């Protein structure tokens, strides 16, 4: 390990410093019942790649970019899941209910396309600047702005 760049912290410390933000992001980005699974996938992917991290001073952004990718993958996977032709099974009893199942905002958020939903959460839940959202989502700043603005517009329409 070269002494020139800052040393990595122990993974445990990195996890503790970032887990609340990542969980908050995922709660809204994939929903409260799915957040746990995607949270674990994101941190397992981070743990796999951890020794090769090149910018130890940007770990907070690094984990959010992994979580963004995992959230979008998660939605794409669920979209590909075959739709059962006969009666859908009943919801399992132990399926934890969303934080506030009566909140119509959830329905509105669920109707957003994955990238818009992720961009909106970065902007309005985590208050991230557009330049950073672009970096997290590996797109241009214009695309990040467009995703946030389309998503926000749709939420306003659904909630009005």
């Amino acid at each position, binding site marked *: *390990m070269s002494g020139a760049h800052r*040393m*990595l*912290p*122990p*993974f*445990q*410390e990195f*996890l503790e410093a970032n*887990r*609340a*933000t*990542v*969980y*908050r*992001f995922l*709660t*809204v980005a994939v929903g*409260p019942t799915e*957040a*746990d699974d995607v*949270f*674990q996938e994101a*941190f*397992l992917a981070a*743990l*796999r790649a*951890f*020794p090769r991290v090149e910018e130890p001073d940007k770990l907070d952004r690094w984990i959010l970019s992994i979580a963004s990718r995992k959230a979008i993958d998660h939605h794409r996977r669920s979209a590909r899941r075959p739709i059962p032709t006969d009666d859908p099974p009943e919801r399992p009893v132990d399926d934890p209910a969303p*934080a*506030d199942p009566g*909140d119509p*905002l*959830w329905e509105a*958020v669920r109707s957003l396309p994955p990238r818009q939903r992720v961009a*909106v*959460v970065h*902007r*309005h*839940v985590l208050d991230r600047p557009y330049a950073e959202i672009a970096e997290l989502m590996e797109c241009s700043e214009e695309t990040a702005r467009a995703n946030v603005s389309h998503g*926000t517009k749709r*939420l*306003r329409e659904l*909630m*009005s």
Partner: protein
Amino acid sequence: MNAKELKRLAPAAKSEARARGATGSLAARAAGEGLVDVAVATMDSPVGELFVAVTSKGLVTVAYETESREEVWQRLVRQVSPRVLEAAAPTDDARRELEEYFRAGRRRFDLGIDDRLMSAFARSVLRATSSVGFGELATYGEIAARIDRPKAARAVGRALGSNPIPIVIPCHRIVGVSGSLTGYAGGLARKQTLLRLEGSLT
């Protein structure tokens, strides 16, 4: 609708609590997939809280509360791997054997040892030290003689002071020629407690 209302879907305090809740199963999964290079845990003991770290090769460190946790963690990152995670299962054997040593008369440890935190010289000193059994004592000079460095008693003392795996590698059994306890990295009180437990000191 104000977009900031989205925040109410995931209150910050609740996220912290749920994230903490998800951490335990994350650690178990990570260990199961072989992604934890250093598993760490703490335990209570008659010599205070012990910090225990285990790798795939074995026990790599046991640290007393007197040592700065930050330094211990950083040493593991530098000399073993940054993939250090609190994980219970991989440290079970080490904690169980220590528990048995303190409370159930265990006289020797059957744990694998990872010697990556030792210098080459310390490695030979600590290997010689490991052959001093429960209830026995040896002097610094005797250890120096055993590693064919009869004049190196002082260096032996320093190497013992740097022992990354106290208790399991019994540097507390090494004393001065007159039988004086001389020194101990964890403090003389801990050395006395261990030697009393082993019946070497009344």
